[in-house]
């Protein structure tokens, strides 16, 4: 008797395949996207926006002196790596625009996030649940517990180290429970001397540093770098995050079309 083989996929599965292809093309954006600015930044992102239900990594970059040596960008150095204030502002702005009404969880080792300051970024502090963890590993474990519980629209963790395995677990938890995860790379007690190079496991990876604003106490400007986007292309912009910006999360002020240093930096990071 000849062995029976599974029958080949029939032609009726085409819609399912199409959907799968669409999702793969959108970088796994199964739960929709969050439009950033409906222009320059979104063009670099798969699906035209930040994928929801996925893990994103935000690292603070070094501030650059205008006119000074522009290439001094490293993985977290100085006050920005310790404070991560600009990165926190970027994440707060994203959380405030999430379509999901559930609360958000913010886990950190050093809880110096000041809730009244969140209002300026359009995030209601009442939506936030804060948690304190012992170390980086506990932060990531608490993030995973928060994602798996399914009670939060988004989970933010401030951690210095993000191993590939931990990132992969978080990404799967995000995908399965339709929550968005953010890892804010932060070293509140100083950057360690040697940082191992990590392969990206998050769907997108951003580096953000402050930039000189347009005038006396104009809306803050950030130097936003998209280091990696699954299914997208890297980019670098100077953006403005104004309080009254109803159109998107950020507004691109200047496009920094300088692909060579950007790719160089990606290898460094």
């Amino acid at each position, binding site marked *: 008797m000849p062995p029976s083989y599974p029958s080949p996929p029939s032609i009726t599965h085409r819609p399912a395949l199409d959907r799968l292809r669409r999702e793969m093309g959108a970088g796994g954006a199964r739960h929709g996207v969050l439009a950033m600015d409906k222009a320059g930044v979104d063009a670099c992102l798969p699906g035209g926006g930040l994928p929801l239900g996925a893990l994103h990594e935000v690292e603070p970059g070094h*501030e*650059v*002196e*205008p006119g000074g040596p522009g290439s001094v960008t490293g993985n977290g150095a*100085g*006050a*920005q790596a*310790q*404070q*991560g*204030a*600009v990165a*926190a*502002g*970027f994440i*707060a702005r994203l959380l405030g625009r999430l379509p999901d009404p*559930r*609360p958000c*969880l913010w886990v950190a080792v050093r809880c*110096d*996030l*000041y*809730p*009244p*300051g*969140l*209002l*300026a*970024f359009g995030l*209601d*502090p*009442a939506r*936030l*649940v*804060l*948690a*304190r*963890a012992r170390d980086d590993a*506990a932060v990531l*474990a*608490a993030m995973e*517990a*928060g994602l*798996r*519980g*399914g*009670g*939060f629209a988004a989970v933010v963790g401030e951690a210095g180290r993000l191993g590939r395995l931990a990132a992969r677990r978080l990404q799967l938890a995000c995908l399965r429970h339709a929550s968005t995860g953010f890892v804010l790379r932060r070293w509140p007690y100083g950057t360690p001397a040697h940082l191992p190079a990590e392969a990206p496991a998050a769907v997108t990876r951003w580096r953000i*540093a*402050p*930039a*000189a*604003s347009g*005038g*006396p*106490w104009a809306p*803050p*400007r*950030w*130097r936003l770098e998209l280091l990696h986007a699954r299914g997208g292309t890297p980019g670098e912009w100077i953006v403005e995050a104004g309080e009254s910006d109803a159109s998107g999360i950020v507004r691109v002020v200047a496009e920094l079309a300088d692909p060579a240093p950007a790719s160089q930096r990606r290898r460094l990071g």
Partner: protein
Amino acid sequence: MWLPNWPILRLHRSGAASADLPAATVASERGQRRLTAVCPLAAGHGLRVGQALAEARALCPALDTHEATPDEDAAALSRLAEWATRFTPLAAANPPEGLWLDIFGCAHLHGGEEKLCAAIADRLHEAGWPARLAVADASGAAWALARYAAASRADGVAGGDARIRVLPPGGERTALATLPVGLLRLDDRSVAALRRVGLKTIGNLARLPRGEISARFGPLPLLRLDQAFGAADEAIAWPLPARPWLEARRFAEPIATPDDLARALSLLATGLSARLEAEGRGARRFVARFHRVDGVEPMIAIATARPVRDAAYVLKLLLGKLETVDPGFGVEAMALEAAALEPLAPAQATLDRQPDHATGLAATLDALIGRLGEANIWRPAPHGSHVPERATVPAAPLAVVPWPREDTARPLRLLNPPEPIEATAPVPDDPPILFRWRGALHRVRNAAGPERIAAEWWRRTPDPTRPAHDFIRDYYRVEDTKGGRFWVFRVGLTGAPRWFLHGVFG
């Protein structure tokens, strides 16, 4: 123990009735308003219990009437009995106007029965409750003597304290012989029947043959007579001490395997859950203790964001921590205790098995509390204070406190405590033009301010060594040439101002 006129006393105590006016409580009895209790002033006007209200009003037009509340009176009496457990473990309410106290074996702790009674009477008198106490071997005798005003005056056994009567053992017959039969706790019809045939005192009744009494007046007078003389026991419903929210289980053989421990935990959780459900309560903390054979007691504790009582859920949280328990040579007993109890209405299971957001959130929070500890999860709540450090307080993770919409600029990261910086300002009143923080130099490009925030004088302890301007901060928002935005403040208006960095903007 007798508390004469308990309903009226309660009225006076609560302030509902003035002690200067004649007061009475009334209740509807067979369609007629009748008095159920009268105060001594009203009694002086000729009012008595059982009188019709209309008649009482005719006798005493100024009568202050209140609706009778027998249930509340009895509840207050139960609370008083609970209070009396500090003198004896056995204290029960005896409505409408008395308490039973079993002081057997307790009197010597207070130096004798008289002293114990005096202590109770004194404490009650201080609290505004005039009480009369009697001690006897038999419940009926004590009841009668406490209520018989003339008795203590007649023989003066208790050294002149009219509130207390202590009967020596076996003295019931002589002490009760001259008391009226009404003190035997009989119903009105029996008393009337006894009086009709001339049996006015208890002594008269006791001399009759027993058979004759029960044949002519029914079983009640004989029972009460026996209870007064100690020949018959009286069943008093002593309130049980409150059962703690604890389920415990001892094992014939010590158990050590995780499976056995989990099974035992499951039994304990099921028992506790059934008890909580019967009382309509839930708990927010559970502690499981493992009594090991070598005397060590490991424990695991869980806390939840909302009160729970579902056995499976509690078990799931406990099992998550069971691996931290070292059973050693075996566990011979286990106990599960619930704390932080709150009312919890029975939940209506959703029909379509869809987990709603609030329940999902609570379960997620419980998992996080188990992982990080109860003190490490909170929700920021606003607090009415201008001092930045005090403007937010932690609230329960499930409490949603709305935030006011304010447009005062506040940083995203607040340094606590503020860090001193070296700043250079051209004029003392100006923002700095450059400052050094953590070794890095920042040149200021834009600045806004000042915003003056002073310490709250009502919270500050006066300190003569510190000048008043030490408690005033002038805040500036500054942006350096690289775009970093900081919140700095100056302390000290004259002399050498000191500068601090308090926060970083996003």
